[in-house]
């Protein structure tokens, strides 16, 4: 009877992630998918308490959290309720494990929960983590490009005022320097700025 599992009460979960932005995105997505997010906490220092208070079915935790060892220990200490077990222990599906690890997420479930339902939680979390990672990389890239553009503009300006050249000449000088030194335009610009911003006396010394 699969109907029983689909109509069962929503899985109740705690999310442990020290990255606030990411946690908010994952929480929203899990809630949209019909899971009840009881709380989101940054580290497990309050986890033992939260677990006892809220008795979640699942704990979803960022892979890079040192508290994973704490969670695993709970699956052994019988005095804690609920008893989480590692999602992966039964699955033995290495492809899935690898995907989850690369996405940066893992989950611990209460013992009597259908593993397929927990898997759905992880699938949602995984997708969100991966999406966040992608966004993050894009953002970093854009930031780096912006920073490089600023450096190039500044170097150009310095060249123009100090050497009295046109903007075009300043730019082609930079590009030629970069090619000769096998460096990026940004790195070359940074070098030029350092050099040109030194006091004149220091610059002239051999």
């Amino acid at each position, binding site marked *: 009877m699969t109907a029983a599992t689909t109509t069962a009460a929503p899985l109740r979960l705690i999310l442990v992630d020290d990255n606030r932005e990411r946690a908010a995105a994952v929480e929203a997505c899990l809630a949209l998918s019909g899971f009840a997010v009881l709380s989101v906490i940054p580290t497990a220092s309050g986890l033992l308490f939260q677990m006892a208070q809220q008795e979640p079915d699942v704990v979803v935790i960022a892979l890079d959290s040192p508290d994973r060892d704490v969670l695993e220990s709970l699956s052994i*200490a019988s005095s804690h309720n609920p008893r989480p077990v590692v999602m992966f*222990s039964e699955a033995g599906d290495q492809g899935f494990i690898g995907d989850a690890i690369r996405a940066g997420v893992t989950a611990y479930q209460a013992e009597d929960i259908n593993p397929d339902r927990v898997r759905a939680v992880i699938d949602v979390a995984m997708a969100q983590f991966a999406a966040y990672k992608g966004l993050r990389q894009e953002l970093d890239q854009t930031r780096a490009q912006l920073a490089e553009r600023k450096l190039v503009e500044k170097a150009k300006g310095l060249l123009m005022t100090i050497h009295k050249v046109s903007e075009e000449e300043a730019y082609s000088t930079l590009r030629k320097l970069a090619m000769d030194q096998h460096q990026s335009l940004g790195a070359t610009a940074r070098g030029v700025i350092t050099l040109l911003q030194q006091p004149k006396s220091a610059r002239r010394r051999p």
Partner: protein
Amino acid sequence: MTIRSQLAPPERTALRLGFLRLSDSAPLIMARELGLYQKYGLQVDLLREVSWANVRDKLVSGDLDAAHMLAPLPLATALGAGGMRADMITALVLSLNGNAITVSPGLALEIAGRGGDPLQSARSTATALGRYLRETTPQPELTFATVHPFSCHTFQLRLWLQAGGIAPERDVRIIVLPPEQMVDSLARGIIDGYCVGEPWNSVAVQYGVGAVQVTGHQVWNNAIEKVLGVTAQWHKLHPGTHLRLRLALMEACTWLAHPANRVDTARILAQPEYLDMPRDQLLPSLTGQLQFVKGQPARELPEFHVFGRYQAGFPWRSHGEWLLQQTGAVLGKTLAPERIKALVQQTFRTDLYREAARYLDLPCPSGDYKPVNRHNSAWELEPGIELGPDMMLEEWL
């Protein structure tokens, strides 16, 4: 050069190794600093991990090639206890000893008030703690922390408590905390004591928030501590690379065996890309000058960490069997002796250790088992095979 040319070519040369922020990750770090990976044609990336669960999972998923690991972890993983089940092996022990048990200043006073003296023996402080628990009404509720359920830390803490007539399951609460959260948790009074590897005991002593009661060495002389862990599958695919990696690490351990090199080691480990903490927190245990209480003179403990001597690298199957028995005890299960023997044989690869020792011309024990609790000073097992003291407090009861 001759050694290198005799070696089989590596199946892969670019490796990712995992380590945790602990002083006994020194062999992995020093092998890189001394150029030993390069010497064996390997190019190694060292990745700082935050939990043992992470290390294990990344090994299984292939995101790490090999890692610094708690000695019981390959066995527990092969057994499927706790986390996921996977066949793991070790062919090299990286270090012996290196842990200590630290308690809050308040609890240290109770222990001292009942005659417990850390300078005397492990049993002295344990007995005093036992008296404190029995003589105080209502019985104090003490919480101790260790770094992982299946760690020598847990086993050493349990042994120490038992030596004081304390039942680890009943009389106290034992929880798991990440090493880096120990000192803070002790200072805030969330826990009353812990068993952890260095530098996390020295850090508590230096801040004046904890007092060392006993060293791991006092609980069990020269106990196996960290190993080089790989999955059985990885070894099967990369036997040549695995051998080269072990040779590089064995040479690093031999270098670390010289006390004169330990100050440099502390300086290097302190760097941001490694442990990223003040050198002064790393010096005490690495140089064997451990302070037990803030303001008191340091104790001379040259064997606080043992690397590369007393056959430290050899994965004794007798040790492995003991670790599995203790793992069973933590799980509340008795594992059948045949099961233990078989699991240890498949996980503790003495054959592979001997293979590496031959290349380096290092003497190597001919048997896989050795007695425990027989020697209170260094002794010779076979000609040229010197072993350290092996007393275990359990038997003194």
